[in-house]
């Protein structure tokens, strides 16, 4: 186990991610999906009431996680120059992650595709498949969850494990790291796990810096006694602060954390405000961010598979409305309003696409959920025709006692005073009938005619039957 602090600066991530290298992924869509849930808050101090957490942190980091997954999926690309395109559709697509060979040819993350291709004519460009990457990340978390209950993902390919109290179970820190890597070997192919960098230290910052200094198969383990010395040799670029702060520090001639901590706190606060204070606390090793147990939300997922790939926006909007209705009618949603939602698609010819939104107000109304998703879809439309449309209700408001406000009306329908049924509503008598039929047959034999592509010249594409299960 070596301590290679000087290597921390030169870790070739070959991607627009991380604290230092992530200058072009700081804004917009790329950031959302490149960093994944939790990464933006990994170093935000926990609320005072939060007492759970683990001081001893193990950081497992798979640089260029997404690209490596693609290479595992298509091993024949391993010996070629490969670049993963940035997510989203634009006339000016940029490169997101590049392989070693492409890097050697001069291709860099953030370059325009035209620039990249002119630098490396044999470059293979790959469309990103976020659904595949998220599934792999879920697999990773599940495997590591068997090792420790204190698990905190920080973006795709990076996870912090709380290791407090695991010494008696697994032995010394090197054995604990070994155990964690072996958990990954059970679920991932060897080349993927072999590229994992592991760093263990008190607090997430120390563990992350140790992971960036580690090499494949050579974890870096830092004890509480040696943390300050270890950090002192690291460059200021490892600080999880605004890149502008790092730039200013470097312009002032402050290159390492050891140099930074020679300054008195008031001077740094005067120059950089609260960020200066935090930077000093990290650089001295005084600030220890515990690993906080990750609350894994259980989303409500619904999907709709089209008989034929669909590219028409109107059809996709119609399908989205149906999916929102379906998701809202799920028993797991009853009594809860929705605050976060995610829409995705499996695309024709492979690949996937996703957009996500946080709702301004908790709601259980179809239109209020669908409208922001439609707006997102207008900005970042699916790059290819859609085979399957997916919807996930990801975040929910507090349970409400007034469930009637959010549920479909119980007292509406043709049998109740002749009131008109709202869109997506089913009269209670029909719901009861479907319930009985489901009990008898095991499934609902009723269908509803929905428009799929009403203006299609091909008759069988215009309408379809959707299973009716209110």
């Amino acid at each position, binding site marked *: 186990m070596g301590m290679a602090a000087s290597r921390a600066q030169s870790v070739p991530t070959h991607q627009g991610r991380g604290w230092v290298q992530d200058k072009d992924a700081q804004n917009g869509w790329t950031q959302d999906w490149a960093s994944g849930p939790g990464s933006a808050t990994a170093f935000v101090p926990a609320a005072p009431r939060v007492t759970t957490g683990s001081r001893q942190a193990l950081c497992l980091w798979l640089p260029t996680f997404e690209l490596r997954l693609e290479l595992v999926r298509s091993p024949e690309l391993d010996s070629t120059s490969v670049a993963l395109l940035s997510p989203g559709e634009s006339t000016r697509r940029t490169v997101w992650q590049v392989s070693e060979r492409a890097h050697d040819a001069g291709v860099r993350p953030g370059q325009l595709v035209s620039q990249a291709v002119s630098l490396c004519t044999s470059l293979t460009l790959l469309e990103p498949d976020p659904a595949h990457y998220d599934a792999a990340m879920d697999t990773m978390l599940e495997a590591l969850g068997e090792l420790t209950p204190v698990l905190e993902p920080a973006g795709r390919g990076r996870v912090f494990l709380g290791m407090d109290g695991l010494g008696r179970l697994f032995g010394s820190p090197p054995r604990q790291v070994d155990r964690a890597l072996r958990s990954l070997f059970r679920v991932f192919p060897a080349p993927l796990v072999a590229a994992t960098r592991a760093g263990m230290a008190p607090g997430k910052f120390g563990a992350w810096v140790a992971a960036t200094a580690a090499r494949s198969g050579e974890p870096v383990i830092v004890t509480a006694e040696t943390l300050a010395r270890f950090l002192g040799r690291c460059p200021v670029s490892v600080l999880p602060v605004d890149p502008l702060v790092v730039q200013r520090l470097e312009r002032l001639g402050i290159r390492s954390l050891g140099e930074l901590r020679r300054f008195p706190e008031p001077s740094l606060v005067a120059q950089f405000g609260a960020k200066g204070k935090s930077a000093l606390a990290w650089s001295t090793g005084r600030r220890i961010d515990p690993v906080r147990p990750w609350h894994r939300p259980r989303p409500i997922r*619904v*999907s709709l*598979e089209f008989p034929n790939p669909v590219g028409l926006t109107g059809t996709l909007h119609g399908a989205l409305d149906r999916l929102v209705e379906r998701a809202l009618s799920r028993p797991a949603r009853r009594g809860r309003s929705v605050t976060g939602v995610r829409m995705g698609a499996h695309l024709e010819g492979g690949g996937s696409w996703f957009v996500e939104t946080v709702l301004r107000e908790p709601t259980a109304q179809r239109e209020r959920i669908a409208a922001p998703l439609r707006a997102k879809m207008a900005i970042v439309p699916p790059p290819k025709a859609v085979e399957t449309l997916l919807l996930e209700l990801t975040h929910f408001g507090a349970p409400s006692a007034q469930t009637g406000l959010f549920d479909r009306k119980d007292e509406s329908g043709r049998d109740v005073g002749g009131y008109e049924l709202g869109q997506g509503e089913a009269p209670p008598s029909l719901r009861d009938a479907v319930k009985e039929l489901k009990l008898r047959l095991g499934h609902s034999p009723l269908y509803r*005619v929905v428009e799929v592509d009403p203006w299609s010249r091909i*008759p*069988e594409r*215009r*309408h379809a*039957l959707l299973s009716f299960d209110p």
Partner: protein
Amino acid sequence: MSDGNDGNDSSGGHRPSEGRSSGGYRPLLRPLAQPKPVTVRTDEHGEPLYVRMPGKTARRVDAVRERWRIDDEWWRESISREYRTVVLDDGRVVTLYHDLAEGSWYAQMG
């Protein structure tokens, strides 16, 4: 004279949405107006003379009311169909199409 098929593939290459697992609850979409393969006897100009639906007896075509052609999706799996609305000798009106890519005949509602 040529005979159309009474083929095995009833969907003409367009299958209903079943058999893919994508996790979570999945409401099924079943396409409407799926084409059904029929056997058609044609004259020397390719016009239908007799139509036999699967499991039924052949019916003579009394008249062709309308005809149109669809050529679409050349970028994917090209679709080329020649439609006819025909009146059979029992008075029924049926929409037929001749799949020019496959050479097969289909009846279609809608």
